[in-house]
């Protein structure tokens, strides 16, 4: 979704277009029966895995002989202990255990030791069903409402390697193969240096990192997974809305990166990017109640060599409150200042612009409830006036999510998303979606889920992706080991 995902999205667009021409329309009932049968086969095949406890990054669970819920309210969402473990560079909070835990001489290493640093996760939708109004398809009747569904296999495979190399030095690398996006590669990879200058004074991350990892609203820790949009390959116009936490999204239509590629309005970006290359420093020098974070990144869609005129900067603070009565709360704010990190088409050429974002988020946890939300405001500045005559330079997004265990093994997740879109006035369309998901853990490392997303503004009509997608249903599986 971040730097490398924009060009990747084009590959997926091609896939989507292919699907649009080949997809068969199924009855939902028949599809669900087939899906359940498919799920049974998949789950049966995994059920006998000798796993005691593993989710999210199960290597940590193995390394410390802990259940995943020691660090997670519900994977991938962290609880406060997990957050402090992350902040401490994968060391137990209040300790520097990287110097002693699990360290062995090279000659003593075994596969079990390898497993303490490595985990895998396989997830994906085995059923996708979109109910939408057809939008000017070639050779089809415009305006007809139809269901399109497809069966598949879990298609997102992640390999994690994470842990401590020595005292106060950690490493994280995630490789991902995503068939939907047609991408395989290193998603994130960084090294951490912790407790520099004293306990929790400065923790440094260097590499390809997710800036919002320690924010009150973390892009990568949402229960409702990203569902990519469908676009017209010739015009780059969005044909079917994507289902993303819209506060994290780019929100602009017609915005391009410095290579000229259109940036998806749904792509998590800037401070909320999945991964950007740079360095950041954060810490809690005055106690647990206050955290600072500052960072420098290459910027949106910029890789090695960084052709930007300058780097992007961000800063964030986080205030934490309460550590008793099974309750905790945090409030965060950030500012991300882009520096020639995007371009706008002025009719003849793409011209540089600064793409900035400001945001605030809150996170409340009480027993079985996990409520978090974020508001972001994006602004395009320093672009020639001529380029902005048909371009709204402001956009905003809101995401609010609630996760709750309704039983010991069943997690209910709700999410509200709103985007007041900016960008090209001929394309931009604001949108509001509500999503609901039930996820049931068959065992600690195998879960099945069913999800329904509903377009709350479908009645407003209009021939745009944000209106044409009525609702969508997904059934999937999530396996970690």
């Amino acid at each position, binding site marked *: 979704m971040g730097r490398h995902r924009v060009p990747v999205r084009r590959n997926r667009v091609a896939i989507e277009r292919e699907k649009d021409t080949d997809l068969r329309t199924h009855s939902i009932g028949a599809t669900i029966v087939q899906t359940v049968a498919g799920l049974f086969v998949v789950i049966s095949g995994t059920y006998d895995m000798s796993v005691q406890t593993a989710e999210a990054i199960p290597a940590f669970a193995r390394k*410390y002989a*802990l259940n995943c*819920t*020691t660090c997670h309210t519900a994977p991938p969402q962290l609880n406060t202990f997990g957050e402090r473990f992350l902040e401490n560079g994968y060391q137990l909070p*209040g300790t*520097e255990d990287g110097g002693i*835990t699990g360290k062995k001489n090279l000659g003593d290493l075994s596969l079990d030791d390898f497993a303490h640093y490595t985990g895998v996760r396989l997830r994906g939708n085995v059923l996708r069903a979109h109910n939408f109004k057809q939008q000017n398809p070639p050779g089809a009747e415009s305006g007809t409402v139809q269901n399109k569904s497809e069966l598949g296999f879990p298609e997102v495979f992640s390999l994690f390697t994470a842990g401590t190399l020595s005292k106060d030095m950690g490493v994280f690398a995630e490789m991902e193969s995503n068939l939907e996006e047609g991408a395989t590669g290193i998603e994130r990879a960084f090294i951490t240096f912790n407790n520099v200058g004293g306990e929790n004074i400065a923790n440094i991350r260097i590499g390809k990192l997710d800036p919002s990892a320690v924010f009150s609203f973390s892009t990568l820790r949402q229960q409702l997974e990203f569902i990519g949009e469908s676009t017209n390959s010739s015009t780059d116009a969005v044909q079917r809305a994507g289902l993303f936490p819209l506060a994290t999204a780019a929100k602009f239509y017609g915005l391009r990166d410095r290579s000229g590629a259109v940036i998806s309005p749904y792509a998590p970006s800037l401070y909320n990017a999945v991964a950007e290359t740079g360095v950041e420093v954060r810490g809690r020098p005055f106690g647990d109640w206050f955290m600072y974070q500052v960072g420098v990144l290459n910027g949106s869609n910029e890789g090695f060599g960084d052709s930007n005129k300058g780097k992007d900067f961000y800063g964030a603070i986080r205030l934490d409150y309460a550590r*008793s009565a099974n309750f905790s709360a945090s409030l965060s704010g950030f500012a991300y200042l882009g520096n020639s990190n995007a371009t706008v088409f002025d009719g003849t050429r793409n011209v540089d612009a600064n793409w900035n974002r400001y945001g605030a988020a809150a996170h409340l946890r009480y027993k079985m409830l996990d409520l978090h939300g974020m508001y972001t405001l994006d602004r395009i500045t320093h672009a020639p006036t001529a380029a902005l005559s048909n371009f709204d330079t402001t956009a905003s997004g809101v995401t609010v999510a609630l996760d709750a265990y309704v039983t010991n093994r069943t997690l209910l997740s709700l999410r509200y998303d709103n985007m007041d879109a900016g960008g090209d006035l001929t394309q931009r369309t604001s949108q509001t979606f509500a999503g609901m998901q039930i996820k049931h853990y068959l065992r600690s490392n195998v879960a099945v889920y069913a999800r329904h997303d509903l377009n709350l503004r479908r009645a407003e009509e209009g021939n745009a992706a944000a209106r044409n997608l009525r609702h969508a249903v997904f059934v999937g599986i999530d396996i970690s080991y």
Partner: protein
Amino acid sequence: MHRRVLRYLAILMVTGFCATTAQALRPKDGRDTITEGHRIYDRACVWCHGTEGKGDGPSGWSIGRYAAPRPRDFTAESYKLRSTPSGELPTDQDLFRTITQGIPGFMPSYRSLNEQERWQVIAYLKSLNPAFEQEQPTPIVLPSPPLFPSGNGITNGRALYAKYECRTCHGDNGAGDGPESKAGHLRDAHNLPITATDLTDPSSFKNGATPHDLYRSIMTGLDGTPMPAYADQFAGQEEAAWDLVWYLQSLSGQPGR
């Protein structure tokens, strides 16, 4: 035989050395020690045990969710992991052992805190419960395993397993699938559902998996859980208790005796 004797001697020497070393690093009890322990607690322990040590930290609920266990309430509750008779407070060594070893599945080992820091935390934990000032916990006598167990130790242990109806909770084969456990009848002191320990998986034993750990668990029970103390039943029959230990070890494929 000589080798076995030497092994026991070595274990005793190492254990004694470690205990002595840990004790030697123990700071004097006092306000400064408690204050430092409080500081460490606020960094490392507060997330599960809460600001006031009531076991209500912000991460504590998610560990067991609607089931046991909940993090320990240091201000009032009885303690599961002890070497003292049922109903009594744990010794300082018990607390030190728990912090050092952790509780598989639920609490990490904090051996990354140095020994002095662990003692400081213990001083702070004890300051949360006035009972520690009034009582002097006394551990049960923990005899060494017999050097020459009887040849039919496991057979005797199996008979004791049946006699004391361990199978009711732990199941016929020790897999934690006894009828009471499977029926969901087992509850802890908070009235939360709790499952019986799978005795075939030593890595999950909350109170440790060495023969001494098993002996201690049998004799003292795990207060606040359905696991009772069997000290009265084995009074004067310590060798029989060791037979039960050998049998429990054999359930997990360990050699037993």
